[in-house]
């Protein structure tokens, strides 16, 4: 009988810690609010050297973050540097941020590059290889599937939507295409900057605008799905760049360039990426320099998008 009592007691003692004794422990009470009316800011990690990365907004803001976050993981692995993704808020100008060194690296289109290069001496280190296997891309002018537009000249007296006013595929190249077709902005009933290629697509599909200039990759995808009809296709222009701030050390630039050139989004690095095929650099990068952007620079100047010289 003593054995039974011993077993019961030992079992109770064994189980004691499970039976909620933690409620007896005295714990600090955290106040939810404070009297101090000074704005509270969270402490951000500023100790470790971090290179900031930003981009031209291209699609849905959250989708952009989801696409570039794993890309930065690749760069961190390949270079050994830490990178921080810094989306631009509406009150921030990426060209200025990049030029002044608050952003070290950025994925920007030709037009942004031309402006940043002219104003701050920003350098393009690589250009993206499109799904056609080229380091050039095109822009498309799309219309809704039930539109009766047959050529760009039919756009006179119609509404038109561009992407962002800094976008190459969403603005520069569509402007070039319209100009070559003899359609000036004044010929249009109205035009707008939707903000992104997504917004352009939505505006055209919904019929709010008769046509829109859009990235060729997304335009073809939407056309294949029967959501839009391709009205015109541009000639090739240099694809989007990865450009670096002029303040970034050369060795860091070189290391980053090497890592970018080794980037294989359809090969070894595919698994870690998110919808990378929808970017303007789905097959990786080739090295580039300023000469590759001469034609685009001439058109941009001609269209009055920027002055052309160095400010």
């Amino acid at each position, binding site marked *: 009988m003593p054995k*039974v009592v011993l077993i019961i007691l030992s079992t109770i003692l064994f189980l004691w810690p499970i039976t909620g004794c933690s409620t007896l422990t005295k714990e600090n009470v*955290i106040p939810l609010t404070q009297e101090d009316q000074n704005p509270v800011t969270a402490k951000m990690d500023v100790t470790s050297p971090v290179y900031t990365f930003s981009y031209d907004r291209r699609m849905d803001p959250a989708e952009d*973050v989801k696409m570039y976050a794993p890309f930065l993981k690749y760069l961190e692995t390949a270079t050994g540097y830490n990178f921080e993704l810094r989306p631009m808020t509406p009150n921030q100008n990426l060209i200025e941020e990049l030029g002044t060194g608050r952003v070290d690296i950025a994925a920007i289109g030709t037009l942004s590059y031309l402006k940043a290069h002219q104003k701050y001496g920003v350098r393009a280190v690589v250009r993206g290889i499109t799904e056609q296997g080229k380091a050039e891309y095109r822009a498309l002018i799309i219309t809704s599937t039930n539109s009766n537009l047959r050529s760009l000249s039919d756009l006179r007296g119609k509404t038109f939507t561009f992407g962002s006013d800094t976008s190459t595929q969403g603005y520069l190249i569509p402007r070039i295409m319209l100009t070559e077709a003899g359609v000036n902005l004044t010929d249009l009933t109205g035009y707008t900057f939707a903000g992104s290629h997504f917004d352009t697509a939505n505006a055209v599909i919904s019929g709010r605008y008769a046509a829109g200039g859009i990235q060729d990759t997304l335009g073809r995808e939407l056309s294949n799905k029967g959501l839009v009809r391709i009205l015109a296709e541009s000639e090739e222009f240099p694809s989007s760049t990865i450009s670096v701030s002029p303040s970034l050390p050369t060795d860091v630039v070189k290391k980053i360039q090497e890592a970018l050139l080794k980037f294989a989004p359809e090969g070894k690095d595919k698994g870690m990426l998110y919808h990378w095929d929808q970017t303007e650099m789905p097959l990786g990068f080739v090295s580039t320099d300023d000469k590759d952007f001469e034609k685009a620079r001439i058109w941009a100047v001609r269209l009055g998008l920027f002055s052309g010289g160095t400010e």
Partner: protein
Amino acid sequence: MKLGNKISIVIVAIIAVMGLLTVPLISHFVGNALRESVQDKEISLAKVVASNLANPALTGNYLTVQRNLEGLKEDRQLVYAFLILPDGSILHTFKGNISSDLVELNRLTPNQSQALKSFSSNDGRVEDVGVLLLDGLESELHIGYKEDYIQATLKRVFETIFTLTLVGVILGSLAAGALGKYLSSPIEKLTALTRKIKEGQLDHRVTITTKDEVGELAQSFNRMLTALEESMSKIRVAEEEQRTKNRELSVLNGVAETIRLGQEINTVLQDALVQIVENLALSGGWVQLRSRETTEINNIITLGITEHAIPCSECEFCECDLSMIEQGQCLSKSSLHKDGRTYQVTGVPIFVNDRILGAIYLLSNKELISADLATLQTIGGQLGTMIENVNLWKELKAREAKVSQLLEKVIVAQEDERKRIARELHDETSQSLAALAMRLKVSMGWIHKDTRKAEALLEESKDEAVRIMRELHNIVFHLRPTLLDDLGLVPALRWLAESRDWKEPPEVDVQGNWSKERIDPQVETTLYRIGQEAITNAAKYSQATHLFIEFKVEATEAILRIQDNGKGFIWDENMFELEQGKKPLGLVGMMERASLIGGRVEIYSEVKHGTTVEAVIPLKKEDNSYGKN
């Protein structure tokens, strides 16, 4: 403590321990599961909220973000929500300023995408759920949920489980008590039965009719008891048989030990009676022996009863033969009143072969069992054999004495014969031969001087030689008469009677049915020597004037009778028991000679009426050729 109580206590203890184990464990696991489930939902909700807030936050629509956060507060379980933007600024749901402690309480580390932290706040217990606004972006959304309702739910679960466990313990205890009683009841029955078995009561059985293992055990137990009872019964019977056998052997052994040759029969019978009475635990008894020739009782040995208390009885078993005895028909049972008590009297015959020598009677308080009766019958045979052996022993001893006397007589007779031969050779033959030698020497001296005288001397010498030869013939004849060999027994005896040195030669008369056919030479010689002794005695002592010799050969025996009419002598059978040196060896010698070949010699004598010696010798079939002729 009873087994049923032990079982009850153990089961109650097990239920209680299991309850004690179950309540905290279930509370722990249910609490954890509930907490994990709630946390999963909280995290999911936080991620959904973060996903919804991502675009307005990234596009700088902070008012939208603020409204969305405040919209979350419709959930009563939500305490707060705040968003840390990449630049460190904070959007939150508090009316006042958010506490910096709260902001830093559950910050995500670089590799974390979500974090949970439970803490005590000035608004109760809160669980802070932190998620990234978007992976790869340094922006965190934190939502605080009330934990009180989880605790309340856990408390309700704990109370329910505790109540159920308590009810389970009570019901289990009742069931355990009933189970203990149910299990221990048949065992108690079996235990009670084992006590009875221990006391030797094998006729009890346990009545358990359940169809389970206990029922099988009970049935096996009953079967075992039946087998045990049968075995014990056999053992008891065997023991009783063994005891009876032992007693029988003990009696027989005791009786056998009393039998010592050379002792008086009465002594042996007395000892045997003591052994029987002691070993069979009897009250007493007596032995009656009858005379050989009649049924008259001539000897009574008693034990535990006086002779005059013995009821008179004839030779009770004299009509019994061996087969009747062996069949147990020769038993007597009666009762005897002695000293105010009634005894059973059991009588069995004392017998040897078919002869009833007497009876043994035993007193007992109750009737004897058949085994004892069989033993007594065996003892009857044993005592009969013993009495016979004692009698034979006595006869043997007597015969040994007679043989010894005969041997002595034979030696004396041989010496007498040698003396006679020596005396006759010395006194007669030797003298005659010396005279013959002298006469021959004288004749030799005269042969050349006077031939006639020499011839006359030689003639005398020849006559002397003839006489010497006759003397030698007589000597030899007395050693073994040639007449016996040549003419047979009767002529030899007649010659012997006539040639004895009688003072007055009697008239010898011979009768019989002898013939020329001869009987066995051994019988003939024996009868001749008996006759020779009788005739010699008659010649020496009887002074008879008439001697009658009769010889008859019957179908089975040869009879020789020598009868004289002399002075006779006083015949006494005890004369053969005389001291050494005074025994009538001649008479003994005759008897022994006859007995050596299975015959007998009987002597009848009366003073002045002569003596008759009769020898009867049995014949083998081929020996009785006398009768045929």
